[in-house]
């Protein structure tokens, strides 16, 4: 089998799109998406990006909803390691490539790292403009009035936007971008991030990117503060963290417990407490 499963032409096609995506932050580049031995919706976009950029020197981490041990994460990690023999890790700090779905790790990323997102719907305008060619024209004209109207309607009726994830962001003051289905909590982490962030949508055949140190701001009215999910007075029952994205879990008695969504962050926290 070929290294990294894809044939060289497929990799060159994906690499061409990645370079253009880096050069035009937030802009959606089309590419010829390939078939992969996983179902669409399982992250074929992220997988193709990872397979096109990975090499023998890499240390790969795969997370799904913040967890290294979920079915999607384990299968993707096993697949990539079986076709590349690359080292894998669950540690965020040790990884050079992190493929993710739904979350940005809690630990700050560094310059030598690349975060690859699995993206279901790449165009943020899709909710307000279902016609793809019209949406492309709106991007070309930087006409995001329909998004602003959506925000305005929510704000006037409910006091704030109802968007809980995929919150629209403006990249480099030019392109409105879908930050993949990350929670609002992670949106500020996109801004001025030290790591390269690449977004791949396999079914939709699109790639886009945010280079390191790039300005990314959530779309927001000037007199409205951007609010993220609040976990005030909530503590992780496992590691005691008070400043991470928490999952709400009900036990058999119906009692609510909170746990860090990022399992590596929780493990590292726990280990450092045990060592003290």
């Amino acid at each position, binding site marked *: 089998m070929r290294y990294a499963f894809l044939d060289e032409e497929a990799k060159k096609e994906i690499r061409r799109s990645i370079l253009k995506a880096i050069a035009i932050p937030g802009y959606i580049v089309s590419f010829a998406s390939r078939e992969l031995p996983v179902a669409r919706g399982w992250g074929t976009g992220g997988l193709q990006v990872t397979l096109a950029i990975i090499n023998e020197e890499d240390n790969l981490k795969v997370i799904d909803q913040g967890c290294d041990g979920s079915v999607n994460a384990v299968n993707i990690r096993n697949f990539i390691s079986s076709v590349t023999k690359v080292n894998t890790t669950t540690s965020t700090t040790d990884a050079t490539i992190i493929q993710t779905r739904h979350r940005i790790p809690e630990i700050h990323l560094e310059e030598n790292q690349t975060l690859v997102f699995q993206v279901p719907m790449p165009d943020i305008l899709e909710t307000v403009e279902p016609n793809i060619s019209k949406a492309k024209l709106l991007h070309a004209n930087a006409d995001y009035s329909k998004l602003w109207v959506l925000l305005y309607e929510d704000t006037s009726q409910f006091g704030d936007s109802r968007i809980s994830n995929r919150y629209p962001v403006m990249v480099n003051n030019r392109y409105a971008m879908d930050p993949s289905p990350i929670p609002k909590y992670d949106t500020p982490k996109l801004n001025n991030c030290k790591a*390269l962030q690449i977004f791949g949508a396999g079914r939709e055949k699109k790639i886009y990117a945010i280079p390191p140190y790039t300005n990314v701001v959530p779309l927001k009215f000037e007199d409205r503060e951007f609010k993220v999910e609040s976990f005030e007075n909530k503590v992780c029952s496992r590691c005691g963290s008070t400043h991470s994205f928490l999952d709400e879990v009900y036990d058999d008695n119906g009692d609510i417990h909170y746990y860090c969504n990022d399992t590596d962050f929780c493990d590292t926290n726990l280990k450092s407490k045990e060592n003290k």
Partner: protein
Amino acid sequence: MKSVDIEKLNRENFRSMMNVLSMPGKIEKIEELFNSSFLAIANTLLYSEVSFYYEGKEEFELIKAITNPKEADTKNADYIFCDELNEFIFNQGKIGTSIDPERSSTYIVKCKNFKGLNVRLTGPGINERKDISLPINESFVNSFNEKNSYFPLGNEVFFLNEENEILAISRTTKLEIL
């Protein structure tokens, strides 16, 4: 006979190119193919769906045979390879359209070393600012800034020196002469 794993070279060289483009001004190494880092880059970028233009002294026939790209003139080529920075060619390359800004030319330019004009780089990929030396003159700075003045239209330029080192400036990079 020593065998060469071309695909391994490609993935290593692509990573270097990805790193230098995502952080303009950063310098990385390129592994040679057929004793040339220039040909190694051509082999990394070219394939049957893209077009290129080259006017210079490197032997491109083998790369063309391996990668099967289309040849095009300077106004239509996706990749333009130059043995030296040629402002006439730079001004001819396509900059894309508002709808398809990615349909623009990428330049790969050979140079002796990176010494030349001291410039300040700002923009995405750069932590506030970066002061470096580039093998360019004042006139090129004007051309580059002008061609990239209407973002998202513009060009990326990779500089490759005789030490097989590569650095890049992107269409988002603002150049200021120091």
